[in-house]
């Protein structure tokens, strides 16, 4: 840990310890800023490991995060990323700050992609900030942040045996919505059957950990053009569901190629809705 960071952390902690018992009420208010400093330091540490020395600027317009303030299910927290200036966007990175594996997903959009809205479901380990970083075509990085209250998502068991959880692994479905018009984007929902084992889930009876097995690469194409590629992580919820926009190629299928961290790979093809006349 960098000296500055550990100084901030230890200062924050000792202030809390020293002042805590004596004046409890005010300390909680004062504690908030200590926590803010700690959370900022945490984000800087993660950003450094993901983006190196690249500068990340805050934005209110290039990307927005919508997520429940308090999630009903920490293993299945719905996230919506909105990028209204979609033509500027090349990629998006999603980070769950306090997850032990914080770098949840990296999407790169292709020529058939429509980045204006992207939805996914993630695991959240603790009350945490989540960050979405939009990468523009000119190489800029822009961040949005939101605080999410959920905990225990990374280690929550699926409530069934591993064998049952893996049944039909790699099966996919795709739903389309929106009216198909030549050259116009439509919305698609991709559902993949896959337990996305985090490696942190314990079988309560045997007390063994189910080894991590998660979708680490997803490539969606429309005809010959890439819609998006996704690099995934253990923080993506089981049975991944991803909502995205795409511009179909008339008469050509939408193809999805998925592979997981244990060498599994699956390909499926879907018929895009045709423009009606």
């Amino acid at each position, binding site marked *: 840990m960098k000296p500055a960071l550990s100084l901030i*952390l230890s200062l*924050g*902690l000792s202030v*809390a*310890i020293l002042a*805590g*018992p004596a004046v*409890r009420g005010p300390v*909680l208010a004062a*504690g*908030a800023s*200590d*926590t803010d400093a*700690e959370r900022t330091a*945490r984000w800087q*540490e*993660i950003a450094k*490991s*993901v983006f190196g020395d690249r500068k990340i600027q805050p934005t209110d317009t290039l990307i927005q995060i919508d997520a429940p303030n*308090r*999630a*009903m*299910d*920490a*293993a*299945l927290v719905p996230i919506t990323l909105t990028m209204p200036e979609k033509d500027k966007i090349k990629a998006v990175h999603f980070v769950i700050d*306090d997850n*032990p*594996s*914080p*770098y949840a997903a990296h999407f790169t959009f292709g020529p058939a992609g429509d980045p204006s809205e992207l939805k996914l479901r993630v695991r959240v*380990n*603790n*009350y945490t900030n989540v960050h979405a970083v939009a990468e523009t075509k000119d190489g800029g990085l822009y961040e949005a942040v939101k605080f999410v*209250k*959920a*905990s*225990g998502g*990374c*280690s*929550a068991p699926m*409530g069934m045996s591993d064998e049952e959880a893996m049944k039909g692994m790699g099966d996919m479905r795709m739903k389309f919505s929106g009216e198909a018009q030549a050259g116009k984007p439509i919305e698609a929902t991709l559902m993949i059957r896959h337990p996305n084992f*985090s*490696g*942190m889930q*314990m079988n*309560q*009876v045997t*007390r063994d*950990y189910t*080894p*991590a097995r998660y979708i*680490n690469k997803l490539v969606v194409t429309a005809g010959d053009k890439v819609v998006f590629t996704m690099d995934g*992580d*253990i923080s993506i919820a089981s049975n991944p569901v991803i909502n995205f926009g795409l511009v179909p190629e008339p008469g050509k299928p939408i193809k999805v190629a998925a592979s997981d*961290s*244990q060498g599994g790979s699956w390909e499926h093809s879907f018929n895009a809705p045709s423009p009606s006349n």
Partner: protein
Amino acid sequence: MRAGRDHRLIRLATVFLAAGFLAAAPADSPVDVPEPAGLHEGVQQGYTPKTLSGAVVVDIAGLDALMAKAPVLIDVALADRKPANFPADRPWLPAHRSVPGAVWMPNAGAAPLAAEREALFLKRVAALTGGDKGKPIVTFCHPDCWGSWNAGKRLVQQGYTAVHWFPDGIEGWQDKHDTAVIRQDAEWAADPAAGERSSAR
């Protein structure tokens, strides 16, 4: 799933006087779990009893009130376990958030616990309480976690007289207050047998 359910289940604690001490029922458990005679050696995750004989069960209001007495806060929550096949090129940055000022001895509530680990736990508590068996102590981990119940039981068995069990744990705390990132207790971590959840088995 778990957090959501717990939050829905947590009701205003029923406070009553029993056997000369104040006990609070933390959460409505769908099943009435009786206290085991000794430590609970079964599955660590699951419904826990509403009571811990010889100790006081506290909810967040009880813990807040106790804070004025500067209790020794003992967090026995397990450490995040790095998946064996986790790729080397991805960031793995576990950060344990807990009650500020707590002493974290992951898995100290396991049962059975290797004799030298149990001895180290008791030695650390003796040091943290300055040898005063009447000093308030709070044990906690997560909701539906037997570890903190066991840790409290161990201390009651050793003759500590002001043991408090906070079953709502870190989730109960963070629902009302800020958490802080804390590191493992240095002596607990220095022991080669210490570490991640798997060492409990």
